[in-house]
């Protein structure tokens, strides 16, 4: 078994940064193995991946020292595009990796890049679609497919190059747990058929099971601490009462109530109407039904969508609420009060958004997918933020696919499927009900399974 990728004392930094993103890093990947590189965001995982497929250092003028050998040859000796034929990549964002309208055109685009003759294209497209079981999607319009299907198409586009190495950049970050699991099983089958090398970066390995032969932690920090199960902060009074909320076309009448300080997770398959329900509750889209109170806080997946002013302080004060300084202090935003809200980190942006909502006097906060694409450290920060606010009497309704996160945090769970509410359940009742989980494309959290193991 020889090495297909080998890094020897590689250091890398971006031209406008002083710190080395990678420092004296060495590793090697053997042909046919399945390797995963883990670590929190910002530790250089993506940089490492981009060095493997030669997107870096050329595309960012980065400074590189040390030796990178690909297929036993110095990586700098490959001409532009050459290495991309042998090392294919699947990226994280299902929406930003396609150039053409249909699956067939997208596959053909890849073949044209390889200068494949026109007569051969038809066969190769047929072959790869058969290999990946995607023949039915040949003429589908990519933008209309689900996230899981898009990632499969992206993988097929990578495989049509007949690469020796497949690089995966957090391929399941945007998928619901059930879909992610299916994708991993599908990939497992493919690897056995094609015998290629797989190198992935991933910050959460929960769903991958024993897919990988070798795990390489990139940062020196210890295992990310498992989030503790929180103490509930439910108070007896009702904080929000929704009655027969519905939209004209999709959402069927939904009624539920939450208590003060309660943390509720809203879960269900991709496209089941979770985001629509949140928007209907805040009256961002036309809806029928009654809701009490009407003044709700809402934090979209990209918190920067909310920002209107030039400093964090103004942002929090925008709604005209009192006690801005107090709020900044409580949410640890004092240090960045004068910064531009677009220039701070993602976690801080969300903190600002929540501070602004609370300052407006919105005591119920609805959050849309705050966990997607977040690493362990960011999740733990989010966990703390929500936990503290809930103990202060804020009520949360959170959409997430991350069942580990939900397990640690949730008092209750609202399940949705196909635009209608299945119902509101106490969290524990959902984790133990396998039928209910499966119907809503969820997987039981590992926290629970460990708990059961220790009892057994």
């Amino acid at each position, binding site marked *: 078994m020889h090495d297909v990728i080998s890094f020897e004392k590689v250091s890398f930094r971006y031209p406008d940064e002083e710190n080395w993103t990678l420092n004296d890093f060495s590793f090697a990947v053997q042909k046919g193995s399945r390797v995963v590189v883990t670590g929190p965001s910002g530790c250089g995982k993506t940089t490492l991946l981009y060095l493997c497929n030669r997107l870096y250092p050329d595309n960012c003028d980065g400074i590189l020292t040390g030796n990178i050998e690909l297929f036993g040859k110095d990586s700098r000796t490959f001409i532009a595009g050459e290495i*991309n034929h042998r090392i294919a990549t699947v990226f994280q964002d299902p929406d*930003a990796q396609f*150039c053409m309208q249909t699956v067939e*055109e997208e596959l053909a685009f890849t073949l044209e890049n390889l200068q494949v003759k*026109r007569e051969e294209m038809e066969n190769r497209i047929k072959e790869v679609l058969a290999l990946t079981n995607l023949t039915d999607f040949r003429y589908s319009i990519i933008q209309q497919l689900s996230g899981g299907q898009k990632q499969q198409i992206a993988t097929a586009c990578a495989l049509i190059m007949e690469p020796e190495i497949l690089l995966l950049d957090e391929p399941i970050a945007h998928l619901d747990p059930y879909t992610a699991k299916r994708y991993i099983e599908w990939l497992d089958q493919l690897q056995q058929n094609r015998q290629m090398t797989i190198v992935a970066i991933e910050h959460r390995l929960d769903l991958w099971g024993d897919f990988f032969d070798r795990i390489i932690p990139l940062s020196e920090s210890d295992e990310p601490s498992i989030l503790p199960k929180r103490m509930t902060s439910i108070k007896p009074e009702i904080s929000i009462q929704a009655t027969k909320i519905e939209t004209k076309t999709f959402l069927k009448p939904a009624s539920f109530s939450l208590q003060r300080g309660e943390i509720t997770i809203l879960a269900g398959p991709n496209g089941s109407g979770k985001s629509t329900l949140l928007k209907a509750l805040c009256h961002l889209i036309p809806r029928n039904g009654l809701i009490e109170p009407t003044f709700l806080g809402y934090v979209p997946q990209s918190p*920067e969508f909310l*920002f209107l002013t030039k400093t964090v302080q103004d942002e929090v004060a925008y*709604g005209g609420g009192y006690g801005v300084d107090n709020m900044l202090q409580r949410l640890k935003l004092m240090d960045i009060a004068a910064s531009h809200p677009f220039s701070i980190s993602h976690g801080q942006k969300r903190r600002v958004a929540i501070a602004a909502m609370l300052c407006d006097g919105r005591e119920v906060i609805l959050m849309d997918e705050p966990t997607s694409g977040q690493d362990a450290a960011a999740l733990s920060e989010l966990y703390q933020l929500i936990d503290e606010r809930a103990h202060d009497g804020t009520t949360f309704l959170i959409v997430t696919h991350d069942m580990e996160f939900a397990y640690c945090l949730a008092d209750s769970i609202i399940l949705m499927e196909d635009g209608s509410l299945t119902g509101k359940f106490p969290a524990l009742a959902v984790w133990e009900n396998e039928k209910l989980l499966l119907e809503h494309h969820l997987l039981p959290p590992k926290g629970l399974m460990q708990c059961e193991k220790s009892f057994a």
Partner: protein
Amino acid sequence: MRSLLHRMNPSVKFVLITVCMFTMAFFFDPVTPLLFWAGVLLMQILFSQTDWKKWLFFMIPFFIMAFGYFWTTLVFAKETVGPIIWSIRSVHVTELQLHHALSLSFRVLAFSSLSLLFALTTNPVTFILSLMQQLKLSPKIAYGILVGFQFLPVIKDEFIQIQQAQRLRGIVQKKNTLQRLLDTRLVLIPLLAGAVRKAERSAFAMEARGFTGERRGGFFHEILVDKVDAFLGVLFLFVLVLSCTNSFWLG
């Protein structure tokens, strides 16, 4: 028959239309553009499946513009010598003035309906592919534009999402159109910030698929030049020549 203009090779159509426009620019009488306009319409009626309601809607501004040209040329003409053929109150119109005015407005109509003929019968994706295959447009630019097309629906969704989120913060949609236009500035900043990130990700994805921007050996989806193009090409030129030589056969 009714699909011929849609089936025509977009590059050929584009070149023909450009040639027609340049030629028409050298004729200053009213009859030539009028005849040419009629010819273009006739071709569009015979060989395309145009949605005429849509056509009329797009033509409204051009009709207004044509009338504006007509009226201002009549009223503010520089030379007002010659026999007066028409008087409305204090405005006296000479033959030469009317001549100029009609020429200008027919020209506007001819040019605009020619452009509409192109726009309404051409698929933008096919047009770009054809520019790359027939007119040797660089793949770097061509695929850049194609990826841009894929982004349009995503950008539209995000625009709505940002507007919704900002409304929650207390931004009220103003009644005044100008103020509303100024307010879109607030939506544009987060929108563009997101678009820049997306664009970079797409560029990386393309490069990772082996895209280098070099000319390609073969195309899967070939845009061909065939008999239809020859037929319509001849027809276009025939209409052009016929309208340009009207002084001979109309006397």
